Structure formats: C-alpha cells, structure tokens
C-alpha cells in the first residue's frame, strides 16, 4: 500500500517558521481532513509538499513509500502522483483548459513511460468528456482559457476536473469547498468520492463541515501553530463546527512567537 508521509517537518517562509514539527501519514484510499484557524500554515504545508521554491525546509522529510521526495522538482512530484487543488488557482491567458490538460497528461505519461507516444486527440476528448460528465460541466468549458475569468466556484470545479484527468495517487484539496454553491458542492464532493474510492489518498483542507458531509473523512486533524494538535474521527469536525477553536486556544495556549491566528 502506497503512503505519503510527512515527518517532523519544519518550514520557513521569509525567515519565519510557519510549520513546526508537523507529522502525518496518508495512505492511498484514506481521506484526511485538515482544519485549523486562518494563518496556521495549512496552505504552506500544501505548497511545501508540492515543492514550491519559496518554502524553505529546515528539517524533517516528506516521503512516498519511504523514499524522500524533497530532492524532486514540483513537476517530478506531480509525475510521482501528487496533486494539489489550489486555494487560489492562477490563470493562464490564451491556453485552453483542454489543451493544457492534454499537455499535462502527456507530460505525466511520458515521465512514467518514456516510450509513451501521447494520447490521441480523439481519445483525449473522450476522456475529458467523461470526466466533465462526472462533474456535470458544460463541454464548452474545456475551450475556455485556463482559469481566465472563471468564477470562484468554476475555478474550484476546474481544479477537480484536472485531478480527475490526471488521476493522482495523492491529492491535497486546499479549500476546494470555498466558493462552490450548494449544488456544486454536492456535485464536486461526489466527484471526489468517485475518483478517490480506495485509489487516492486525499487531504481535504477546509474550514467547514459542509464538504465533509459528503466526503466522509477517515481522520480529522486540527492544525494549530504550524503542527497537528488534535486528531480524531469525523466527530472532531462536528465539534469544531459547534464550538470553534476557543477550546484549542485554551488547551494549547497562545501561539509561539511569530505565529498568529
């Protein structure tokens, strides 16, 4: 069973320690929810796992099946099967969603198998349509320029479409639920469920219970001050929804120097 392990991770951003001693193991097929107050380091963790150059790892490790991926560039990590659905996806004017996804799929396939000749346009179109059906997206959408002028919710849905096409082994969904309307939230969540189904290890970063109503997490973790302070089952998220973070603050006190919430 493939697993993604984050071990004793410490990360600096602009010389400030944002992640401090973070530990988590996600196995393929498991769904983990990561919750925590604003600014506590959730996105930083996601970016760090993906390999963003701005984040400086001072100690600790990120491993897939015991092998460190810290020496890999972001594209190599993607080829290893890591996917990040961005909290704020960037737009690429002039490049259609379809064209972009075909290039990305081919790049991944070629990395996995150097003899790969690339997917034919016809086959790709079929694949894309089936995934768009799953997420109830209008086919027209594929010819729009990537994230250019997409509404907040459209961006989030397009992120999950990318995940559907690229079929990663591990997916980090950074606040995918924010911006989605009630129906879209259900459709996208069900889509994630269908895709994950024992194949993908998912880390759902969220502030609310709403997405977890559809995607039932196997584990819920609370991140505070750059590390996980509480872990539990699905009920933990419900408790947060009711009580907020006051009890966490009382229990774990004021945040260490430089970290604010």
């Amino acid at each position, binding site marked *: 069973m493939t697993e993604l392990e984050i071990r004793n991770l410490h990360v600096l951003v602009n010389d400030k320690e944002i992640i401090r001693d973070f530990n988590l193991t996600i196995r393929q097929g498991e769904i983990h929810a990561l919750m925590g107050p604003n600014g506590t380091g959730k996105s930083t963790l996601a970016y760090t796992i993906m390999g963003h*150059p701005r984040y400086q790892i001072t100690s600790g490790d990120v491993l897939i099946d015991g092998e460190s991926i810290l020496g890999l560039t972001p*594209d190599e990590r993607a080829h290893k099967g890591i996917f990040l659905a*961005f909290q704020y996806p960037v737009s690429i*004017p002039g*490049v259609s969603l379809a064209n*972009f996804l075909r290039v*990305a799929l081919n790049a991944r396939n070629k990395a996995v198998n150097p003899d790969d000749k690339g997917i034919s346009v016809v086959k790709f179109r079929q694949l894309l349509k089936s995934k768009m059906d799953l997420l109830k997206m209008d086919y027209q959408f594929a010819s729009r320029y990537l994230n250019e002028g997409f509404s907040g919710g459209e961006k989030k849905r397009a992120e999950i479409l990318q995940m559907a096409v690229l079929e990663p082994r591990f997916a980090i969904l950074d606040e995918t639920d924010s911006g989605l309307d009630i129906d879209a939230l259900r459709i996208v969540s069900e889509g994630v469920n269908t895709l994950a189904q024992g194949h993908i290890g998912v880390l759902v970063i969220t502030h609310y219970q709403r997405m977890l109503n559809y995607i039932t997490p196997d584990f819920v973790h609370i991140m505070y001050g750059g590390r996980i302070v509480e872990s539990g089952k699905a009920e933990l998220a419900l408790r947060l929804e009711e009580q907020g973070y006051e009890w966490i603050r009382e229990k774990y006190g004021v945040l260490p120097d430089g970290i604010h919430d």
Partner: protein
Amino acid sequence: MTDNHQDILQSIGSGDKYGFSYPDDSIFTSRKGLDEEVVRQISAYKEEPEWMLEFRLNAFRHFSKRPIPTWGADLSGLNLEEIIYYARPRQIDQKSWEDVPENIKNTFDRLGLPEAEQKYLAGVGAQYDSEMVYHNIQESLEKQGVIFLSIENGLKQHPDLFREHFASVVPFSDNTFAALNSAVWSGGSFVYVPKGVHVDLPLQAYFRLNMANIGQFERSLIIADEGAQVHYVEGCTAPLYRTESFHSGVIEIVVKKGARVRYTTIQNWSTNVYNLVTQRAVVEEDGTMEWVDANLGSKVTMKYPACFLKGPGAHGEVLSVAFAGPGQHQDAGAKMIHFAPNTSSKITSKSISRGNGRSSYRGLVRVASAAENSRSNVVCDALLLDHESRSDTYPTMDIKAKDVQIGHEATVSKIGEEQLFYLNSRGLSDEEATTMVVSGFIEPLVKELPMEYAVEMNKLIQIQMTGSVG
C-alpha cells in the same frame, strides 16, 4: 503641419520606415556596391520601360543624399558597400548542404519538413516543384479576373494598371530604405482583385516554398478594387537562411471603396539579417485593411505596418507579434493616419523577449483635423522571460481633430513564479510551462493565421524556447 495628402503620406515615414524582400530568377548578378551604372544595368536586364528606369534613377539619387537613420535600432553593423544589389539568388550562393549551419538544419527537422523542401529552403537544393499547384490555382483566379503575377510580369503585362498605382502608396522619398528599394527592387508580387470579387483562399498560402526565394529588395503591389476581398499570406516559418544579411522591401496596398484586404506575414530570418521593411496601405471609403505580422528571426527588424485612412469610414488594424531572442532587436510597431471622418484603427502589439533580446514598440497615431469622430485603440503587451531582456515602448499621438476617441494601454509582464509553479505542479517542466505561457500570450495572433501556419507557429515557438530555461 498642413493636412495635405502628399505631405501626410510623406510624413508617415518622416522617421523612416522599412520594407523587405523576395525572389528573382535572373542570370545577371551585379557587382558589390551601388552606383547609377548598377541601377541602369538592373533596369536594362529587366527590359523595363523608360519611366521605370527614370524612377529608379531618381530614387537612387535621393537615396545617395539620405543618411542611414539613427533614431531606431542600431544599424551600425550594416555595410552597404559590401552588398550585391542584384543577383540571382541560387547563383550567388553556390553553397552546399554542408555549409548550412547545424541549428538551421535541426529546426528544419523539428518542423518535420521533407528533405527536398529543406534543401530548397536553405537555398541549396534543386527547384522544388510547385509549378503544378500554381497552374491550377492560377486558372481559377483567372476566371474571376484576378491578376496574381510576379511584380516583373505585372509591369510587363498590365503596364497602365501598374503605373497608375506603383509608388502611389510609398513614394521613393518616403524614407532611406524605401529609396534604396525603389532604386534596386527586384521580385515580389503584383495582385489585382476586380470590383466585388472575393478571393476565398488566402493567396500565396500555396506558394510558401517560393518564399524561400525572397530577394533582398522585394517589392509588392496589391490592389483591391471596390468591394473586393483578399487575404495575402507571405510567410515561411522555417528559418530563411541567407548568407547575405540585408533585406529591405516595400509592400504597397491599395484598398478601394468598401474593399477588404488582409496581409499576413510570418518571418523567421536567420539571426544575421537586418530586416528593414516598409509596409503601407491606403484605405478608401469604408475599406478595411488588416496587417497581421509575426517576426521571429533576424538580428534587427524595423517594421511598422501603416494604414493611411483616406476615405470616410475606413478602418485599419495591425496585429503583431515580435520575438526577440539572444542578440536580437525587434523594433516593430504600427502607424495609423486618420485623414477622413469616422475612421477607426486598432493596434495590438505583442512582444516577447528572452536571453538579453530586446523588443520595442514604436507607434504613431495621427488624427488630422478633417478626421472628426474617429476612433483609435492601441494595446501593447510585452512579456519578458528573464531579467536580462528588455522592452520599450515609444508611442506617439498627434491628434488634431475634435470628437475623437483614443485609447492606449501598455503592459509589461514577466512570467510569474506563481504561473510557473501552477503549471509545474501539473507535471510540466519549466521549459514546457514557459512555452505554454508564451503560446497563450501570442494566441490572439495565432488564431488569426491560416491553420497550417498556426500549427507551425506553435512548433516554432517551442523551438525558440528550447534551452531557454536554465
């Protein structure tokens, strides 16, 4: 400044402007350097009428008095004494396939061109046989009354039509290089589209191989009569490898009442070439002129397609992309001269610079006092791929009329770290990601190109970007 036609025409080039060049099939080759004798020889060799010889000589005398312009790109490397002003292209070279630089051959391979075509493009092969295709197209054009000839044959076979329009849009006194071209021009096309005739397929798309034959001082004349429509494509995405390093042509276009002309250029000169081009159209009442222009190669390009909007309701557009790589300076832009009421123009200029390449936008929008109620919109976007590269804009606005709407927008952007990271995170390497951002940036132009050129343009961008990311 007085609002007089001829003055204005001349003033379009008052900074100087440029042209470019095509094929010729003569046997005669002139000696190096230029004097009246060489000009006479060229004219005699072409068996030209007296008036053309006079025109050439007047142009030469004018050229002799004019300085090489210094206001734009650096032309100090240009040695006009060393140039052969008239030659049969395939004869001057006598070079062999082995002499063609490796990087050019590699580009041919990557474009997937067959060997015969590669050799032809490199100027070392036997004549590539496009004659048959030419004949078939020629027949169908003739049925519509369309004239599509080499400029030499245009002069011979349609002397009156030719003389009426030749140099009517770009007088030899326009600028230094227009004067030079006027003295020694050779090769180019002559096109006439009769009243109301719409030419469906782009002209010249079939003759892309002939483009490899571009001479140094090509001159083209296109006339679209009232209500006519034509799209002329002059392009070759394969690098045009030349041992000679100077091209200076003139393109003149007459767009009559209600006519519509689009002129598309895609060029990828080898990086030793000075490419100095004068392209201009006169647009009459309710006519439309569109210049679509992509410049990828050359050492220095100076090129500012112009529209002289002479009739009420005339419309002019320039859509251009310049790619400046290491050691290159692309000084490109556009000129729109509004001379009549209710005219409109639009300039969209995009440039990409990388590896210390330099691109400049140089533009002029002039609205004469007669041109009330006119509109003009200019958008220039520059994309810098690294810190060494450079981009400048030199926009000039000269508005004399009332009730005009003028818009100008300029942006300079670098490929953002966040864009790269986003694409990286989906499995694209830095090079693939950068290429994708660049392709997206020029998409507005690429989508205007005929299909086969669009495909090649994208491949070409990939080639240009290879090794661009350290």
